[in-house]
């Protein structure tokens, strides 16, 4: 504790790497003066998975499933972006019916992602009943997604050149039925969010990010839209079937967590409208188009609107069936930069909800980093790290030399 309290009564409170309010490991060093946050250090890098490197060693079809597992929640957005990139390079046009199915799944995914966020946000502010209710209603969407795709979160509906599963009458009616019952739920959430005093007092004017700051820090998705920036890739740069589907951009002028909540709830309503439009106007036709295994050389950037914001994929091909470079920029990475600004000046009680309000996705964001600072730093490989660990424990009088670990 002594190192956490400095002379001038400031406390450094570590939130993370393991903390009940964080869904994944991340670190926030919050400097407190009483209950006020005077400084915050945002640290990521606890969850590096080497996804991009793995993708560069496997063929395009295998990569599709790895890319789908970049994020557990917006899996469809990532795989759509990757598919679109490969299709763009291969120069094929996806059948219209496949585009529509992709959109329906994408909007169902947005529904389940926003419901999940609403539950998490309610949990962060200690409103566990709403947390349970939203997650109960989220099950309906997950059940539909399991019927449509074959799994609850990694639906695997996309394939390069189209989709893998078709919709039929029963699925259509099931989706419409679920969507109808969800519409009721969403209306209720909106009413609770607008009238429950304790909820409003915890959300209003917390984690402020003004219009100018949102532009300055390059915020995307609901965070930017809550600050009044009408940015939505589905409208500003429509892709796939969104070129034909009417989409309204939901914005809010509150510039705070309350605004982000309102934007997300209203976006769910908008998603429901889109799903209804797609089901009613779905064209007939084939599902896939043949794509060669070897993709012609070239490079491409694709932007997709994930539930959390703008998702960018970069793909470079060298003419073989293995990509030369894959780069995934998850939406959270764009929203991290404003985090320090949002945390400063708030109370300690606002920290969890402010962090949760951008819907952070730590492991989607983490990439390998080499820190080069003035201090004495060195880059270690696995063996070096192991040796360092053994030496460090030796100083603490713990001998680990005899421990057998499989050499990598």
């Amino acid at each position: 504790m002594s190192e956490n309290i400095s002379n001038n009564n400031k406390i450094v409170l570590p939130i993370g790497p393991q903390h009940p309010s964080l869904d994944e490991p991340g670190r926030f060093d919050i400097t407190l003066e009483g209950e006020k946050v005077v400084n915050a250090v945002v640290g990521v890098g606890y969850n590096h998975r080497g996804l991009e490197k793995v993708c560069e060693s496997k063929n395009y079809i295998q990569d599709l499933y790895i890319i789908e597992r970049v994020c557990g929640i917006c899996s469809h957005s990532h795989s759509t972006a990757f598919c679109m990139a490969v299709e763009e390079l291969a120069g094929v046009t996806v059948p219209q019916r496949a585009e529509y199915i992709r959109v329906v799944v994408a909007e169902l995914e947005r529904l389940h992602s926003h419901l999940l966020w609403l539950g998490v946000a309610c949990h962060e502010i200690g409103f566990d009943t709403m947390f349970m209710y939203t997650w109960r209603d989220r099950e309906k969407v997950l059940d539909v997604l399991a019927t449509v795709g074959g799994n609850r979160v990694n639906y695997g509906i996309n394939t390069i050149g189209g989709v893998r599963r078709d919709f039929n009458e029963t699925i259509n009616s099931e989706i419409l039925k679920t969507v109808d019952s969800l519409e009721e739920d969403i209306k209720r959430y909106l009413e609770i969010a607008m009238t429950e005093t304790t909820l409003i007092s915890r959300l209003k004017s917390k984690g402020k990010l003004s219009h100018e700051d949102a532009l300055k820090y390059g915020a995307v998705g609901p965070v930017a839209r809550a600050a009044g920036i009408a940015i939505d890739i589905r409208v500003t740069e429509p892709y796939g079937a969104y070129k034909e589907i009417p989409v309204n951009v939901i914005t809010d002028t509150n510039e705070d967590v309350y605004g982000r909540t309102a934007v997300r709830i209203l976006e769910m309503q908008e998603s429901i409208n889109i799903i209804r439009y797609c089901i009613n106007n779905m064209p007939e036709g084939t599902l896939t188009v043949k794509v060669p295994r070897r993709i012609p050389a070239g490079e491409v950037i694709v932007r997709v609107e994930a539930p959390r914001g703008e998702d960018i994929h970069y793909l470079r091909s060298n003419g073989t069936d293995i990509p030369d470079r894959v780069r995934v920029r998850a939406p959270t990475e764009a929203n991290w930069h404003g985090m320090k600004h949002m945390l400063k000046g708030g109370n300690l009680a606002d920290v969890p909800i402010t962090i949760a309000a951008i819907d952070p996705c730590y492991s989607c964001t983490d990439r390998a980093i080499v820190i080069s600072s003035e201090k004495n730093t060195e880059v270690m490989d696995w063996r070096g790290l192991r040796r360092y660990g053994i030496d460090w424990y030796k100083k603490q009088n713990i001998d680990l030399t005899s421990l057998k670990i499989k050499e990598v």
Partner: protein
Amino acid sequence: MIEFLKILCKLFIFPGFLFLSVYSFLLDFLDRKLYARMQNRVGPPWYQPLADFLKLIGKKTIIPADANAVIFSVMPLVSLAAVTVGFIYLPVLGKEAIFSFSGDFVIVLYLLAIPPLAAFLAGWYSRAVYSTIGATRILTQMFAYEVPLFISVLAPTLIAGTWSITELTGFYAAHPLYIFINLPVAITALISFQCKLERAPFDSPEAETEIVSGALVEYSGRLLAFFKLAHNCELLFVISLFSAIYLPFMTGIIWVDFILYIVKTLFILLLLILMRVTMARIEINNTLNFCWKYLAPVTLGQVILNLLLRGVL
């Protein structure tokens, strides 16, 4: 000798320590079960609180190197002892408590203040950053609810003109209509008790998502088990106190009164659960504002009303 055994039996078995702990386990189970059912969940089985307690008893107790070992290990027992001692002044079986004298009201109120203070000391001497913040929050919250709580508990005594809980209960049991005069302070007392028990929406001292579990973050094993037991007993203690002061309906037949007592405690528990279910956690500064802006004026108004009424009645 028989008298002595009787008193011992009353102190330790019924309605003393054993009854207190067993019934508080039952209340804890009902608390969790109803909380879960209101959230559309299944909830734990009936033996869950006891199973938790026994499991914690069997676990290793770790005392942090930086902590003050004596205070760290004594505080759970202090908390439990305060609650147990306080409980013997409350009427459970009929309108008579096990012990009573003319000033036991003050004793009970002082004993009521000990568990939060014990938690504060435990947190402060754990020397961990989360527990320090939790401990400061406990003190801040005490500052918020203590005055409204004391005034709202003491306001009914002004009409009864006694400082003994047994006599107070007897007085109101004889004049049941007077209970309705105290309705405003009954409400404020219920809210202050919720605040005192650190249950949602007033759970910022142990806010899980902010400071992990507040003052008790370093506790483990047997010591944590006793803190949990003390907390459960505190819940029953507070509920019994509430039913003795604000719901003293009596029939005079001792076992009917005991069943009435059970019904009353369950009813109060239901109100406390409802409060916990329906609201988000209130920030500590808003708790302060709320207690001083709304609760304190109501209680003070009641005191003035009761003083005036005392002259009339």
